[in-house]
């Protein structure tokens, strides 16, 4: 169960890194960003049909999401059943904030994911006007301060989730059996969290502050 969690989590890490790289194309201008979005749909052609690679990635992501959340809820349930009588007083001696917020933080990320997909993938709603191209849509949305605030909060949650998640996955896969390896895993985890949260935060902040 936990290996499933670790591997699906590792897949998400790779995906968010690629996603972040794409987002940073906002800085390269409208043409670069829009053509990037368009080329994503042509990826793998002519071997794959139009949007073929995109759909393969989407199916894999949904599968990984079910595996990741499923194993998380299973572990959550098992933890609850393992201690039905709670302590009257319980203090944490070592637990980091990120480790304590994995579960509710994960649920928060799930809610954010729904919001994010409805806004930028399904276009269920649009903020800041109605747009034709992806660049305009992103640019318009992040002119609105509360959209930026929601995204920054979610990125904070994602960064924390990654900080504990990457370390935890390394531990679960048995890659941290020496103190040196454990130190490296911790450093990698912090770096992943900071890079992902920071990299994603740059475009919205720059748009709101009028830098792009």
């Amino acid at each position: 169960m936990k290996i499933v969690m670790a591997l699906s989590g590792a897949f998400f890490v790779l995906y968010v890194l690629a996603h972040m790289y794409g987002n940073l194309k906002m800085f390269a201008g409208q043409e670069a960003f829009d053509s990037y979005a368009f080329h994503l749909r042509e990826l793998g052609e002519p071997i794959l049909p139009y949007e073929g690679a995109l759909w393969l990635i989407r199916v894999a992501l949904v599968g990984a999401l079910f595996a990741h959340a499923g194993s998380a809820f299973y572990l959550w349930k098992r933890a609850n059943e393992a201690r039905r009588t709670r302590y009257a007083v319980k203090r944490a001696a070592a637990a980091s904030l990120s480790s304590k917020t994995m579960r509710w933080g994960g649920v928060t990320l799930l809610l954010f994911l729904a919001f994010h997909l409805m806004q930028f993938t399904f276009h269920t709603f649009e903020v800041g006007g109605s747009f034709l191209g992806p660049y305009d849509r992103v640019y318009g949305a992040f002119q609105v301060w509360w959209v930026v605030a929601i995204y920054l909060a979610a990125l904070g949650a994602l960064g924390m989730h990654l900080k504990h998640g990457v370390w935890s996955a390394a531990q679960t896969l048995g890659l941290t059996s020496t103190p040196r390896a454990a130190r490296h895993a911790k450093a990698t985890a912090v770096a992943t969290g900071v890079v992902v949260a920071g990299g994603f935060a740059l475009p919205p902040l720059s748009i709101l502050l009028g830098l792009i």
Partner: protein
Amino acid sequence: MRITLKIWRQASATAAGEFATYDLDEVSPDMSFLEMLDVLNEGLTAAGLDPVAFDSDCREGICGSCGLMIDGLAHGPERTTTCQLHMRSMKDGATITVEPWRGDSMTVIKDCVVDRSALDRIVQAGGYVSVNTGAAPDAHAVPVPKAKADRAFTAAACISCGACVAACPNASAMLFLGAKVTHLGELPQGQPERDARVVAMARQHDAEGFGGCTNIGECAAACPKEIPLDVISQLNKDLRHAMAKGL
């Protein structure tokens, strides 16, 4: 020192428990935590009341019998066993909450005494080395590299007190399990049964109803023997190798 104790009283495994409050006026800072409880119990006995039940044996920090949740920390605020915790670590005039280890796999027998036989059953499932009986072999007959001997010894320091389970937010016993697996897995004598051991012990751990580890690290911080968290990584690694072999 003046101390107010809020301590868990429960007549039997099936009875409902509750906290009882006792005031102690003449506590010496040099008393151990258990000696302070002894003083409380002498007073209760003299008054014709039932003394508070708690586990203890060696009282020198090596047997693993004692273990109380003191103000929300397993074995209290110091990195040691409850018997080696002294009252000077507490504040004068403090109210101290004392609870038994909590976990559905370690149920209360009476007051602050819990049933830790689930940990014994995990060891019975594979935490041993099968050898032929007979004369003891020479101590240096089997060479063991120093680094491996050291790591095995660090893991072997586990006294099975259960503090790791008590402190774990998931009530997982994986630090305990990891210590046993690492202890035998680092030594040449432990190799023939290494794969079967880790699978059998992990299976027993789950069957006993302990929770799953989420790598929070409370266990290693509570461990009076300072067993490091990397034994859990070793456990996961050994388990992965054994599963890859189809066990």
